[in-house]
C-alpha cells in the first residue's frame, strides 16, 4: 500500500510546570488517508486537542517539549522551518476550532477574514478572492451569501459562525481538515447540519478529515476509523464498526454506556464512569485507567502496550483482560445496566 497522507509516529508532548512535568500526549500514533474520516474521542484533558494542535505546531510555549514524527507527503512537519510550516498550515492542512464565538475576530467582517485566508496562500487579486469567499459561504449553506459576506461575526448565529469557520478552512482546498469539537457548542439540530456538511465536503474536496469529539455518537455515522484517548494515550484504535460492535477497552465501554440512548428502552440509571481523569503530572502507575476501572486486577499495575489482540488486525487496544473475558464482561457496562 502507498504511504498514508498524514502519519503521526509516537508523538509525545509535555509541558514543564511549577508542579512538575505534564505529559499531555504520551506516544500517540495514527494515520489518515485521503477521503477518510478519523475520529479522535476522549474526555477533556485526554490530550486529543493538544495532539492535533502540535501536529500543526500551533502551540507556542517555551515550556513545551515535543518528540516524535509527523510525516505529511514524505516530509516531517516537526523539522520544517517556521516559514515552510506557515505555508502548509491553512493551505494544505486547515483547522476548525471548537468555539465559533471566540475564533472569529469580532472587529473584522466575516468576508474579509475568509479573503485574508485566500490571499495568504493564493496568488490572486482581491476581487477574485471575494468572489471565492462568497462561493465558499454558499457552499457551506449560508443564505444570501453576497450580502452576508459583509457582515460582522456578531451578526451571525452560532451555527452560521461555525459554517463561516468551515468556509475559511476550506478556502484553499486543504488536503486535511482538522475539526476540534466543531459541534460541542451548538444545538443538536445545528450539530446534525454541521456533521452532514463535513461529510459532504469531504467527498467534494476529497480531503481527509480528523474529527475530535467527546461524544461517540457524533463520529458513529461519519468516521472510518476511531481512536479513543485516555490520559494522553491511545487506549483503543479500530475501524468504526469494530469499535462499536467489538469494543475491547473498559474505558470505551464506559463511554458507550454513559450516552443516554434514544434507540433503547429508558434505563433506571445511566452508567457513569466513576471518578475523574487522573492528573497528568502524577499519572497512576501501570494502566492509566486502572483507578476507575471496575475490572482491574493485579496485572494492571504494569502498563499494557497498544497492540492487536483480536481477529481484526487493524484493531488495537491497551488492556490486560483476555478477549473472551472482555466479551463476557462488557455488555453490562455498554447497555448501561450495571449499577453505577
Amino acid at each position, binding site marked *: 500500500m502507498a504511504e498514508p497522507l498524514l502519519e503521526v509516529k509516537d508523538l509525545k508532548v509535555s509541558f514543564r510546570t511549577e508542579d512538575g512535568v505534564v505529559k499531555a500526549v504520551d506516544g500517540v500514533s495514527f494515520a489518515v488517508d485521503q477521503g477518510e474520516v478519523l475520529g479522535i474521542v476522549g474526555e477533556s484533558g485526554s490530550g486529543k486537542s493538544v495532539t492535533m494542535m502540535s501536529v500543526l505546531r500551533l502551540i507556542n510555549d517555551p515550556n513545551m517539549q515535543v518528540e516524535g514524527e509527523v510525516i505529511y507527503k514524505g516530509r516531517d512537519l516537526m523539522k520544517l522551518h517556521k516559514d515552510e510550516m506557515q505555508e502548509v498550515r491553512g493551505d494544505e492542512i486547515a483547522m476548525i476550532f471548537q468555539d465559533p464565538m471566540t475564533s472569529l475576530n469580532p472587529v473584522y467582517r466575516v468576508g474579509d477574514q475568509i479573503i485574508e485566508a485566500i490571499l495568504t496562500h493564493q496568488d490572486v487579486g482581491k476581487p477574485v478572492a471575494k468572489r471565492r469567499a462568497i462561493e465558499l459561504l454558499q457552499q457551506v449553506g449560508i443564505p444570501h451569501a453576497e450580502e452576508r459576506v459583509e457582515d460582522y461575526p456578531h451578526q451571525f448565529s452560532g451555527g452560521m459562525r461555525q459554517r463561516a469557520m468551515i468556509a475559511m478552512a476550506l478556502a484553499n482546498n486543504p488536503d486535511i481538515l482538522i475539526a476540534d469539537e466543531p459541534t460541542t457548542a451548538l444545538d443538536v439540530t445545528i450539530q*446534525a447540519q454541521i456533521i452532514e456538511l463535513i461529510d459532504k465536503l469531504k467527498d467534494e474536496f476529497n480531503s481527509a478529515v480528523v474529527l475530535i469529539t467527546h461524544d461517540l455518537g457524533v463520529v458513529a*455515522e461519519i468516521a472510518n476509523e476511531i481512536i479513543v484517548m485516555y490520559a494522553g494515550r491511545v487506549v483503543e484504535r479500530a475501524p468504526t464498526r469494530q469499535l462499536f460492535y467489538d469494543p475491547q477497552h473498559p474505558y470505551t465501554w464506559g463511554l458507550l454506556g454513559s450516552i443516554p440512548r434514544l434507540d433503547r428502552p429508558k434505563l433506571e440509571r*445511566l452508567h457513569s464512569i466513576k471518578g475523574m481523569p487522573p492528573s497528568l503530572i502524577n499519572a497512576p502507575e501501570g494502566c492509566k485507567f486502572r483507578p476507575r476501572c471496575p475490572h482491574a486486577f493485579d496485572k494492571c499495575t504494569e502498563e499494557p502496550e497498544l497492540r492487536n489482540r483480536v481477529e481484526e488486525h487493524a484493531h488495537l487496544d491497551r488492556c490486560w483482560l483476555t478477549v473472551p473475558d472482555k466479551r463476557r464482561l462488557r455488555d453490562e457496562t455498554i447497555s448501561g445496566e450495571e449499577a453505577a
Partner: protein
Amino acid sequence: MSGANGGDPLVEVRDVKKYFPIRKGLLQREVARVHAVDDVTFSVHEGETLGLVGESGCGKSTLGRTIVRLLEPTAGNVFFEGRDISKLGSRALRPLRREMQIVFQDPYASLNPRKRVGSIIGSPLKIHDIDDKKGRRKRVQDLLQTVGLSPEHYNRFPHEFSGGQRQRIGVARALALRPKLIVADEPVSALDVSIQSQMLNLLDDLQKEFSLTYIFIAHDLGVVRHVSDRIAVMYLGKIVELSPAEDLYVRPIMPYTEALLSAVPIPDPDLAHERERIVLEGDVPSPINPPSGCRFHPRCRYMTDICKEVEPPLVDYGRGHLAACHHPLNVDRETLERVQVSKRHTPGSADEEARPQEPGRAGAGPIPRSG
C-alpha cells in the same frame, strides 16, 4: 422518578408572555419587541420533572427565569402553590426564594471566582439568616458531601475544580435552602458525556432524597428523556408539543419534535445509517418578527398553505399528549375526529376516551429501535 398524580399543581403557568423591548434613538423609543415567550400555559405537579426542550432562542431559558421570578412576565400569571407570584415585588418575593432555586448552564460563569466554595454555597443560608456561623459551616459541609464533593473543599476557590465539580457546587448552592422547586437550565450541556451521566444520576438521587420538583431545560432530547416525567417542546416562544415523556419518543405528533428526535446522534453506526435523518434547514427565525401562522412552517417539510395563514391551536390528542399542528403525525383518523382544542392546555382536561394507537402516517420513525 415519581409521576404526577392528583392534587393541586406546585407551579402553574397561565398565558404567560415575556416580551423584551428593543429601544432605539435619543428618546429610547420602543421600535420592536422580542417575543421570547408568547402565551405559554402548563403546570407542574409536586415531585414531577418537566423537561423543557428547544433550540437556542426558543425562549426556554426566559421561561425558566420567569417562573422563578428572576424576570417579571409581560402578561399572564405564574402560580406557586396556588399563589399568584407574577406581580410580587422583591421584598414579597424573598421568602419565596427559599422555595425555588435555579441551577445555571455555565459552571464557569455562574460561580464568583473570588469567593471560596464555602461562602458561595453558604450565602443563601446567610441571606435568609439560617443558623449561626458554625451551624452554617456544618450545613455547607454536609451539602458538599450530598453532591459528591468532599467537606475539605470548603476553603477552595472555583478555579480549582473541573467543570463537572463546579456544576455540583452550583447544585449544592441551589439545594442549600431545601427548595421545593429547582429550575435546572441546561445543567449538563457544558459537560463531557461521561461526567454528564454522573450529573444526571446525582439529580435523580437528590430528587428522591429531598422530594424535589424539577423543571429541566435542555436542547438535547436524549438527555431530557432520561430525567423527565413529562416533556414540553418549545419553538419560538410557544409550546408546540406537551406529552408524557415516553409517549413523545414513541409517537411525536409535531413535525418539529420529529426533527429534534432525528438530530440526536445514535452511537451505533449501522442504526445511524439506517435511520431517516431529518436535517432542519437554517436557524430558528427571529423572534422579533415571528413567521405568520404556524411559526415552524418555513422549516417544516409537511408545510401547506394553511400553515402560513392560521396558527394551529394546542390540541389534546388524549392521555395528556398535546400538540399544535395542522398536519399531526402518528395520529389515527378516529382520534383526529374526536380531538378537541384544549381549554387550559393542561393534561387535566385530557379526554380519557381518546386512545390513539395506530400511527396516522406510516413510515420509518426518526429513531430506529435496537433489540
